[in-house]
């Protein structure tokens, strides 16, 4: 299991090169989150984080997932700082014996990272006049109840 919180970008191919190598791995799933512009005016996100607590919270979420789905490997990378439209924000990779475990664990990780990992996104518009914090959605909190 590997957890990284960093401002630098990551190389998906390089990260996956040594991932899920255990002989009993039958499936790997990866998810990558990107900075999306819905309105046509977004320039970048500023992602604030709580150093220390981020690593602790993500480790706990990943340990829970690893145990519940008997994962053979698990990787979470989450970035912070200034991220422009199209840039990678984060990734999760899960490896399990079968695809169901790998898919479900990846969804679980994403649901929990959204509302239990201490990151906050602020949207900055292209002309610099609008800077607003992204609010948490009720649907994100509701998503946790299915687990």
């Amino acid at each position, binding site marked *: 299991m590997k957890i990284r919180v960093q401002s630098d970008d990551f190389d998906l191919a390089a990260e996956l090169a040594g991932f899920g190598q255990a002989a009993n791995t039958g499936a790997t799933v990866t998810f990558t*989150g990107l900075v999306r512009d819905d309105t046509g005016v977004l320039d970048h996100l500023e992602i604030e984080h*709580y150093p220390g*607590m981020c690593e602790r919270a993500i480790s706990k979420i990943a340990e829970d997932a690893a145990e519940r789905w008997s994962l053979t490997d698990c990787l979470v990378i*989450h970035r912070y700082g200034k991220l422009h439209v199209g840039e990678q924000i984060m990734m999760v990779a899960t490896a399990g014996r079968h695809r169901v475990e790998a898919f479900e664990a990846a969804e679980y990780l994403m649901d929990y*990272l959204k*509302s239990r*990992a201490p*990151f*906050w996104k602020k949207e900055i518009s292209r002309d610099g006049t609008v800077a607003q914090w992204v609010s*948490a959605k009720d649907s994100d909190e509701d998503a946790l109840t299915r687990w």
Partner: protein
Amino acid sequence: MIDVVYFAWVRERIGLPSEQIETTAETVMDLVTELKAREERYDLAFADLESLRVAVDQELVDFDAPLAGVREVAFFPPMTGG
């Protein structure tokens, strides 16, 4: 002495990322009441506790959590990771 840390719009409203506070507050809620009485910016930041989350020593807790032996309290809005 407790380290009090603020993030996102809570940090912006209070105008500080962190501060050390000498307090006899027994719970997080007592500390909030103490801070609100200080200055208007604190009162504004803590106006709606429903829209705030709190962590003690980097673990999420409820506002009635005790502060005995706690080194760091953090206040922030609901998280938006992922």
